[in-house]
């Protein structure tokens, strides 16, 4: 059995959404992790809860809230509409769903790496005259490299699997917003789609395994050093 063009598009779109989402989330995740690892401020616990919320919320809830926020009547959607930016029902919506849902995983990995940094190194840099930004760029960033890589791979894997939030704010439009999990759902709910559904499941499993293997390899190397 061969893939239909729409199935191939679904696989490619999943890769595109995952990559773009990772690139978008990485700088944000780095800042969030830095705040949580080194910041001392009021409301830190609240921020921490907020960042972790998507991990425990059902993705359907995340999708519905994003629809309320980004839709034409939503507060953010209303701001974007005059600028000609429309997010709902485009591949960008799938990216946003992935970013929100995978964010806690990314932050967690980076934060763990940051908390493993010897505080004396940071103090030494400060005492040698490095400014806060300088410390972040020359000490914290390089030393949390592994956390960034591990977090990114986990985040990428999560976004390959994103379904619940995506189907609500992006729809299930073949060739436009239909990612791999959405295509599988479509085939699995059709009486004639069983074969293709299984085939796409295999693709999905292989992709996930490769990414998770990468993730484990990064973690192993970290333990080795």
């Amino acid at each position, binding site marked *: 059995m061969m893939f239909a063009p729409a199935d191939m598009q679904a696989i490619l779109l999943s890769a595109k959404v995952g990559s773009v989402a990772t690139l978008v989330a990485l700088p944000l995740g780095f800042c969030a992790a830095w705040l949580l690892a080194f910041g001392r401020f009021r409301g830190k616990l609240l921020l921490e809860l907020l960042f972790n919320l998507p991990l425990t919320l059902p993705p359907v809830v995340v999708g519905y809230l994003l629809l309320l926020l980004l*839709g034409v009547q939503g507060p953010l959607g209303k701001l974007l509409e005059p600028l000609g930016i429309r997010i709902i029902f485009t591949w960008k919506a799938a990216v946003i769903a992935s970013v929100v849902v995978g964010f806690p995983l990314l932050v967690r990995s980076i934060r763990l790496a940051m908390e493993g940094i010897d505080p004396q190194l940071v103090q030494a840099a400060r005492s040698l005259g490095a400014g806060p930004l300088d410390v972040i760029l020359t000490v914290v960033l390089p030393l949390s490299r592994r956390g960034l890589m591990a977090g990114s791979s986990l985040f990428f894997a999560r976004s390959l699997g994103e379904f619940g939030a995506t189907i609500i704010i992006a729809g299930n439009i073949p060739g436009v917003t239909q990612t791999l999990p959405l295509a599988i759902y479509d085939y699995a*709910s059709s009486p004639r789609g069983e074969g293709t559904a299984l085939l796409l499941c295999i693709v999905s499993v292989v992709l996930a395994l490769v990414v998770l293997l990468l993730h484990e390899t990064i973690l192993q190397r970290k333990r080795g050093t």
Partner: protein
Amino acid sequence: MPVISRIVLIGLFILSSARSSMATEISLSVAASLRESVTELSDLFQKRTPGVTFKKNFGASGALARQIEAGAPADLFFAANNEWVDYLIKKKLADEKSAGVFAYNQLVVAGKPGLKISSMQDLLKLNRIAIGSPKSVPAGEYAMTAFQKSGIDKQLEKKLIMARDVRECLLYADRGEVDAAFVYKTDALLFSKQTRILYIVPEQLHERVTYPMVLTVAGSKKAEAVAFIRFLASPEAKAVLTRHGFEVR
């Protein structure tokens, strides 16, 4: 074995035997769009038939059929199209002789109250139209057939927003994310707040929207399940369906 788990086991045993001696349970697998009507009908039947209880499982027809195929307990299957009933009959999991029509529905276009749609061609004026994914949602399949028969499928292609199910289509229409949505009349009546039925899609443009029902092989051996499916064909049951917006003949 620890005392706790022994007590739990004995408790479970008592519970299960008590249930089976007191009541017969009829398991229903019901297409999501029939939730309200089937619930009302089964409550009605339960009230006048002592000793019968219902266990209802709601979902997409396809998911329900696959559950039954995998051995999930089900005596009666209500589907949103014939395909899934035929699928179970072909797999020898449903009793072909018991298959019948539960109700009919109408495909409608729902949207903003101000919009005027008086023909399929009028749809071309709209920017975004929500339909269920044609592959997995029967309402979406009917809509696609109607587009093709009206010769507007190519022009509409870029305007179609495909949703997971009919209720999601309605959500999009209610929030103003789409101009119009292809949904069933009963869903539009029950669930939309901001939208109105703008147009009833002529029935010659698609197969009639039919909800079949069938006893599973297990259900056909249960007298109570057989009695229930007979009750569903009674004038009284049909009156309930009509009140919910369904057609019965």
